């Protein structure tokens, strides 16, 4: 029983990471039709700069941890905004070229990160409490899982409130459904494009800092490896659906944990198998309307 609980909560923690990456991917795709391959680089850069700031501050304090998360969010939002303005916008509506540009950006930035920080993992130190465990019904749960889950819930809640309660949220929801008609009502939808990139980048940057604490290190490849699972999550959840991304993140990560433990490390396969099943049964994903 305690093993099941441990796997479940660890899965939720990993799912939280997936969601932080997938939420931005899904919103960007839903509104703009752009598959953002550079999203992993937003995450990696957030993680590195979060670490750079943290190591210059007091080691292991909560303030340092909080500041590094904030740095990750700001860095992610900034590079994402620049990417949208400088590379995506000039190729407006040319979706394939937009994807290609983000592919080039991801290749170039990963190489650049390797040049700056080296290819070896850099170990990160967080508040002592993160490395401790909490006893829940007999299961010893590493505390960083709770932080991840809390962060993802806060981001999810923030996004939902933003989408439901603000004018830009309204524009984004309408734009995901029918972009052309939004402009035909006199709304400049392009500003919303920059905004979703910034929001997605911020979530990825937060995810980067948290991922470095979850894995215990940061490396130039950290973003790319999470990105692949985030892609799977967005397809399973339904492209463009935030709720779908949230549900699929949890399903994928929990399945992965259980399969890794009970089925001899086959977690990654089970995830791809799940993807295959979803494609066979419902190609649009759990909550998606377009494929």
């Amino acid at each position, binding site marked *: 029983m305690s093993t099941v609980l441990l796997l479940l909560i660890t899965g939720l923690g990993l799912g939280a990471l997936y969601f932080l990456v997938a939420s931005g991917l899904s919103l960007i*795709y839903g509104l703009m*039709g752009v*598959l953002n391959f550079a999203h992993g680089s937003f995450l990696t850069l957030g993680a590195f700069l979060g670490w750079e700031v943290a190591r210059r501050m007091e080691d292991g304090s909560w303030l340092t941890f909080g500041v590094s998360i904030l740095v990750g969010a700001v860095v992610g939002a900034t590079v994402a905004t620049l990417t949208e303005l400088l*590379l995506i916008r*000039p*190729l407006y509506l040319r*979706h*394939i*070229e937009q*994807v*290609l*540009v983000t*592919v*080039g*950006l*991801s*290749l*170039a*930035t*990963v*190489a*650049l990160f*390797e*040049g*700056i920080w080296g290819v070896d993992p850099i170990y990160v130190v967080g508040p002592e409490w993160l490395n401790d465990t909490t006893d829940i019904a007999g299961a010893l749960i590493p505390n960083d899982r709770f932080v991840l889950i809390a962060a993802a819930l806060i981001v999810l809640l923030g996004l939902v409130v933003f989408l439901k309660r603000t004018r830009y949220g309204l524009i984004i929801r309408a734009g995901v459904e029918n972009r052309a008609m939004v402009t035909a009502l006199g709304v400049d939808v392009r500003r919303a494009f920059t905004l979703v990139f910034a929001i997605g980048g911020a979530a990825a940057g937060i995810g980067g800092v948290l991922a470095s604490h979850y894995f215990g290190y940061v490396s130039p490849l950290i973003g*790319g490896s999470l990105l*692949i699972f985030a*892609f*799977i999550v*967005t*397809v399973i959840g339904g*492209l463009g659906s935030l709720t779908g991304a949230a549900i699929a993140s949890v399903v994928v990560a929990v399945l992965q944990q259980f399969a890794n433990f009970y089925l001899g*490390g086959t977690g*990654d*396969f089970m*995830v*791809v198998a799940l*993807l*295959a099943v979803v*494609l*066979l049964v419902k*190609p649009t994903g759990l909550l998606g309307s377009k*494929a």
Partner: protein
Amino acid sequence: MTMIRRLRTSRLTPWVTGGLLVVVVAVLPLLDISLPGVLPGSTYTPGTLQLLAFAMVFAALALSYHLLFGVAGLLSFGHALYFALGAYGLGIVLRDTELALVPAMAVVLMAAIAIAAALGALSLRVSGIAFAMVTLAFAQAGSVLVRRNPSVTNGEEGLPLRVDNIPAELVGVLNTRNVYWLALALLVVVFLIVAWFERSRAGHVVAATRENELRVRVLGMTPFRVKLITVVLAGGLAALVGMVYLLLQSGVTPAVMTADFTLTLLVIVVLGGVGSRWGAVVGGVLYTLLDQRLTALARSEAIQDLPEFLRIPLSEPLFILGTLFILVVVLLPGGLAGVARRSLARADTARARAGRNLDEEARP
């Protein structure tokens, strides 16, 4: 002058040029030509032949990817899977069985085709960007399979080639030129198959689905089937290329199965010009040479002595290639083939204008 123009406009011209080019490339190992800065040594040295053979293998692989992306308009992020399947499959069959090279290749090709058909049928249930993501996921599963089963694949170490059952002419540094010719033959064969497919009925239909799927449906053909045929053909060709790669490299590592490897193919095809066979070939060769030269450049003193903010980016070949790729996408739609086409067209109009001016001057 008129003869030159007639030669250019003839439909046979590219084939004649191509044939001549093949002959030139075929005799290179017998010649002693040095191109400092482009090739590491003279054309008969094993190092240079190895590099050129690599370039041709990459060109052939790029051609198979051109079928998917350039002809069918399918953006796949998992094409490396079939290449790796060929390389690993042949390596494993040669190690674990006593089959000779050709039967072993046939077995692996069959397996690759079967897998391409199964995965293709599944991933073609979605289109566009979702197709890209799904192919990526399948390739990732393959990559994990290779890394997690060291007893079969030798894991991160990579799988060495067991040479017991392959012809002695293809083994060893001294025989590099034989493998070079094999790579050339592969490139020619793949080029001809791709050209033949593009001219076939299925090729025309799949090109039509790229432009307008609805219209193909209206014409009573199923886009799904022709796309699947394309995916299977591209996968089979990639596996074939992977097998030659194994022979050339005397082994294979999991690096050829990563998403980055497929992205490299995408870079090559876009660099050369999407939709252009010659673009894929030129892109493949150019990329291999650039990659090799940039790596050499990164280690050179000229770069190592630079201040940090220049040294770090310039000593990363992939950074330069990635940046170059972005610039091509943004500034040069159509890639190298597009540039060539535009300059030819410009030369033609210039000539036409010059001709008209002459006519006007000739009038009283």
